[in-house]
């Protein structure tokens, strides 16, 4: 079983730290990406995602700590390990004077990949028809897809994708999600994908790591992240006059906030509490237009996680 927790992770970092001159960027990151997972690496812009990606590829040298890919030290076996890794770092680095096909060919020859892969990856990302055009004529979305083709070229076991949905239109984003899922589930790839928007990847990922100001503030499976939210459910009451209700039932509506005209929001305590509140409102002669439990979205949780560090 690929996702067995006893298996060595395909990618892990130990106390990975990095500083630019005197400015610390990353603080003791301990990433753990299991084989066969799609790991969403989340964080606001400037949190250190791209720097981490560069460290994971050996483009930067860590100030301290280490990276292990496939159980081996990256610093010692960089060339050997990178043979099994495909990467797309930020905006893809394309040679604008070359056609799409020539761009793929240049990387294919560099990696010693069989010739038939060029047409395969171009078809996989839907660029076969435009492969003869110079890359300078490509739209942002096409550039992104060509970058993905370069990453997929060696049929890698591990894919590192930095903001791969950048510049894609909604259809492109949906296609990218489907592609990532198919790469993982049907082709057994392990994928680390970074984003600053959880909504873009929550339908795709199996695991999540949240980075804020160079620190990992959450790491776990998607259900783990969802469990974090359970304590943060809200009870939403729609009535005629929010203030009147608050004055009439100060005990039951302690901690309630006015969220809109006639709308009160308070922390969800229990079903009994909700029933008691309904009964109290009816006996006080207040109308109940609506009474419901609201779960925070993953986005709220993500914002909550990243905001906590800001305070």
């Amino acid at each position, binding site marked *: 079983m690929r996702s067995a927790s006893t298996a060595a992770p395909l990618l892990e970092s130990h106390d990975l730290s990095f500083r630019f001159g005197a400015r610390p960027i990353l603080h003791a990151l301990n990433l753990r990406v299991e084989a066969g997972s799609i790991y969403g690496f989340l964080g606001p812009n400037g949190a250190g995602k791209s720097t981490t990606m560069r460290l994971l590829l050996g483009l930067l040298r860590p100030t301290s700590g280490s990276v292990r890919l496939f159980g081996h030290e990256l610093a010692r076996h*960089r060339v050997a390990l990178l043979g099994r*890794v495909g990467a797309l770092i930020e905006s893809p*680095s394309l040679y604008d004077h*070359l056609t799409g096909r020539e761009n793929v060919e240049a990387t294919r020859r*560099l990696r010693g990949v069989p010739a038939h892969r060029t047409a395969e990856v171009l078809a996989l990302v839907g660029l076969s028809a435009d492969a003869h055009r110079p890359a300078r004529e490509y739209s942002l979305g096409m550039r992104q897809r060509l970058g993905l083709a370069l990453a997929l070229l060696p049929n890698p076991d591990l894919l590192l994708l930095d903001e791969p949905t950048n510049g894609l239109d909604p259809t492109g984003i949906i296609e990218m999600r489907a592609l990532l899922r198919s790469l993982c589930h049907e082709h057994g790839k392990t994928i680390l994908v970074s984003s600053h928007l959880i909504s873009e990847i929550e339908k795709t990922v199996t695991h999540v790591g949240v980075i804020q100001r160079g620190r990992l503030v959450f790491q776990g499976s998607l259900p783990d992240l969802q469990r974090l939210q359970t304590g943060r459910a809200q009870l939403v009451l729609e009535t005629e006059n929010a203030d009147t209700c608050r004055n009439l039932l100060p005990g039951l509506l302690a901690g309630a906030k006015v969220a809109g005209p006639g709308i009160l929001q308070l922390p969800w305590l229990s079903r009994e509490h909700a029933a008691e509140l309904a009964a109290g409102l009816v006996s006080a002669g207040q109308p109940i237009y609506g009474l419901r439990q609201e779960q925070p979205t993953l986005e709220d949780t993500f914002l909550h996680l990243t905001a906590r560090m800001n305070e």
Partner: protein
Amino acid sequence: MEYTLPVAPGPLTQLGRTLVADALKLRRTAALWLALGGGALPVLLNLLIFYFKGHLLVKPGQNPWPQYVGMSWQTASVLLLPMFVVLLSGLVVNLENRGGWRHLLAQPVGRGAVFGSKLLLLLVLNAVAQTLYVLLLLGAGVLLGWLKPDLGFQSHSISLLPVLRMLGHTYVATLGILGVQYGLALAFRGFVGPLAVGIAGIVSALTLLRWEHIDLVPYAAPTRILRLLEGDTQLSVTATLSPAEWYSLGWFALAVLVGYLLLLLRRPVTD
């Protein structure tokens, strides 16, 4: 679960693959056109000079080849050739300066292969350009023989050996500039920086030509070896390397070493 360590390709395989990829990247680039067409300018200029004013330059019955080769070589070596090497090295390295380094260094090839491949490419392009120049030069001479039979190009031998020796000397003399400019291009990671230093170097070299230690300046080497072209009636060129060429080789070795260290210990790849 244990993962077996993948096998890394050998250093020569890495170098070969990088070189093939680098050669592909040259398609439709200014660097390639410069290397293929750069030699045409001095040849064309001298063709025009000899076509229109040849009767003033060549005495009747005299072998025109030594003067023709000498004049053309002078046009080429003093300014155009150093400028060509400066531009070529800048353009070849500049192909990677728009995010290419990031992509290249994340591939399973060592930095030695990345460094060596571009250096080899530069050496080959430089050799191709200078060889093409010589072929054009000789071809234009033959053409002059047909167009202006009075000048006598067709009735005297070209004497190929001295020309080939001169080609060898000139190539060695450009290696110092090539090495230094390659190292600068790697250090600057831009096109303008090394170009500015290169122009400053060429201008300084031309200004300091009468300095007793001018052989130390790599940018002066192609000019300094012009004195090896001898003979009014029959061209002759010695095979022995001149001091300027030895210094050029020294600069090349030093610059290659420093350039490699620069790429190895390179500033963080952040572009």
